[in-house]
């Protein structure tokens, strides 16, 4: 991969060098080189503006995809941790409650951003699915947020929701760079 990048860089520099040399040669040996008509200037300007716009658009789109990927990875980092869906029976109920709420809040905020990206990059159904699984997790946790006995017995179900979210996140990333 690095070899390929280096080869492209070399080719780019060679082409740039050729263009500059051709320009310099024409500047000194072609009397008409500096003679421009207005239509020629306008055509050149329009071409430059369009080319610049196209490159910027591609750049902006790539940056937006990278941001969307970061948001998806933030969600995955939370749901893939065992501490997110595990509630040890001898744990501190208040502490575990607070930590889970913080995680749920973070996912909720990530989902708000992700839904905007989903419209832009065509993964609306995947984002809605994640929201649905998140809501199921949240509802189950919310019924008894301080009851470790209840939550530890619900671990399998909570883990299932978390893993569904994680898998769907993988699908979104795959779709982003298709």
């Amino acid at each position: 991969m690095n070899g390929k990048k280096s080869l492209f860089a070399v080719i780019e520099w060679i082409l740039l060098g050729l263009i500059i040399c051709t320009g310099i040669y024409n500047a000194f040996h072609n009397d008409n080189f500096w003679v421009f008509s207005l239509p020629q200037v306008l055509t050149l300007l329009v071409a430059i503006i369009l080319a610049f716009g196209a490159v910027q658009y591609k750049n902006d789109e790539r940056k937006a995809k990278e941001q969307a990927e970061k948001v998806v990875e933030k969600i995955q980092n939370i749901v893939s941790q065992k501490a997110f869906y595990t509630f040890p029976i001898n744990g501190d109920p208040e502490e575990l409650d607070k930590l889970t709420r913080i995680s749920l809040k973070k996912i909720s905020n990530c989902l708000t951003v992700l839904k905007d990206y989903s419209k832009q990059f065509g993964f609306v159904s995947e984002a809605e699915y994640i929201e649905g699984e998140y809501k199921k997790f949240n509802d189950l946790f919310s019924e008894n947020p301080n009851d470790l006995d209840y939550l530890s017995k619900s671990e399998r179900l909570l883990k299932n929701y978390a893993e569904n979210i994680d898998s769907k996140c993988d699908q979104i990333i795959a779709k982003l760079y298709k």
Partner: protein
Amino acid sequence: MILNICKEFSDTPGARYKNEGKYSGEEFRDDLLQPRFLEAEANNEKLVIELDGGYGYPTSFLEEAFGGLARKYDIKKVLERLEFVSEDEPALINEIKSYISSARDKK
């Protein structure tokens, strides 16, 4: 008129009903939300609910508090009277409004 849930009630609101533990949605509605709502109604002013500062809200708490209020006092009236502020978790506002809008009599 402002009601800050975190400062005036709890930064870790509980479950749905009083018999399920402290700081339930039912307790919040009966002791704080309902009286303030009625006061706002009497003064013809908005009741601003500030949701920031806490650790997060169980869905059952929100539904019982705000959905419960709408079941008692009419959906449209509650939606018109209440305003929400939530910088920590913006999605909460639409979530609460959906609980209010879809409030039904519980049997």
